[in-house]
């Protein structure tokens, strides 16, 4: 029955081929809205991103519960205390979960295929969202087999850094 569906690869929408609503003589009207924003990063995220530019991953520690969170936070989500102690984290960690992205959509940050992972850096008390890469991603079955053997990853830095999250290019298996 799969042939009853048409998958538009660019839009990734599922349409039933042999079902349509009563055909319309009615029109649609195209309007786009594009709005600029300028997000304030504040002292904590400014320092976090400046750290990435230097090739360092910073977290902050809560003085009450002692947890180290990354990306660095101004305050602890649980205790609501200021997190003023800066900690440079190891650039290696364990994969908590991952998925291979194999479809395209508007506003996507990277050309698929790519792997998104939750990576728990050593010493950190939470996981960080980032790419996992450094090997061939074109065949999902090979990716699956490869990922079965991977538990530890290490940050690979971008050649050009702009003090943003993409200064880390991806995490590669160690």
């Amino acid at each position: 029955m799969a042939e009853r569906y048409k998958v538009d690869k660019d839009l990734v929408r599922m349409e039933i081929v042999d079902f349509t609503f009563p055909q319309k003589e009615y029109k649609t009207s195209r309007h786009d809205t594009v709005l600029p924003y300028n997000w304030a990063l504040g002292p904590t995220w400014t320092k976090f991103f400046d750290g990435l530019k230097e090739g360092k991953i910073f977290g902050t520690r809560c003085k009450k519960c002692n947890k180290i969170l990354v990306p660095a936070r101004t305050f602890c989500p649980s205790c609501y205390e200021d997190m003023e102690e800066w900690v440079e984290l190891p650039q290696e960690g364990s994969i908590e979960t991952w998925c291979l992205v194999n479809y395209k959509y508007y506003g996507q940050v990277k050309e698929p295929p790519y792997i998104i992972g939750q990576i728990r850096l050593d010493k950190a008390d939470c996981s960080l969202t980032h790419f996992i890469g450094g090997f061939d991603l074109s065949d999902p079955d090979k990716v699956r087999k490869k990922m079965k053997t991977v538990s530890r990853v290490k940050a690979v830095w971008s050649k050009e850094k702009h003090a943003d999250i993409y200064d880390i290019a991806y995490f590669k298996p160690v």
Partner: protein
Amino acid sequence: MGRAVAVIGTGQTKHGRRDDLSYPDLVREAVKKAFEDAGITPKDVDGVVYGSMPSMMEGVAYNHFYFADALRTVGKPLFRTETCGSTGQSVAHTAIHWVASGMADIVLVVASEKEHEGDAQATMMTILEPFLMVTIGGAPVAFSLQSREWMGYYHIDEDKAREAASIVSVDSHDGGLNNPLAHIRVKLTKEDVSKAPIITYPVRLYDVCPVSDGACAVIFASEEKAKKICKKPAWVKGIGFRGEEYFIGDSSKAVWQSTIEASKEAYKEAGITNPLKELDVAEVYNPFSYQELMFLECLGLCPPGEAPDYVIKGTFSPGGELPCDPSGGVLCCNPIGAAGLIRVAEAALQVTGKAGEHQVEGAKLALSHAMGGAMQFNGITILGSEL
């Protein structure tokens, strides 16, 4: 929870690709049906609650202003409530609080989405700030990550999870075939599902909900009004809602606390101690088949880590101990803002014996559920045939 509250009428559009009418006309289609079902007029309504996805999806800020006429809200108070995918549960809860508190006797609740007018995945990208967690944007990414986290946490065999997810998809699509209003109405086999193109591994095409247009309206009333107006109201037995931290990595999504705690609260209020035994039907929010497996556990319907076993032995299939999503669920129809309210409406239809071809015989107690945000919110509403 204050005064008793009942559902006295529901209305749903034909869901699907609705280029055949404008957005206000789509909203009106559901509102009209709800009024006809309840047998009341807009004059009887004390207030209106509306919700949808964020403005980026709708293309117009505050679309409830645009729909003022279709919502019959002229001359009445109007509330907007939205929590992304769980919006449908949140709008229902807003009305329930309103009636239970005694501030209103009859409240109309409407939720809608016209996804073909915008771009659902592009909207999802705007749910996260654009400089720290944006890489996770796009619904299949976030929920595939969650499914894999769950599989890893309980050491669930990949092939077993695949088989169970395929059963969830096949059962839901069978439900869709029985529901004339569902968007996707096709017969699928387990092989169709397990061999479909990969979207975000391990999630394949038929593990994913469609992009739908649709609206849903539900009318809530106080005990006194419900008994006067309605022969067979669906009584609100319990509700629960919980939120979580913003950063996904801050807490486990495999043992999902917001689902667990929201359902516990709803069960406590409803006096339910063994949900699998006591519930007759569940409308679980299932935009992704793998995610439904995890929900079955977090909703306390089976032991943690054992959802695949229960699904494979048929516990949640048609004719099983607790049939899930007989309407076809979100897998067959996902106008996102409305999807959580459709779950409430379907639960009401089930406990009042009005679900037609997808009626679960003799259903008296039904659970409805939705989740929203980048794994951030969960809402539950339990309806019953008895006060």
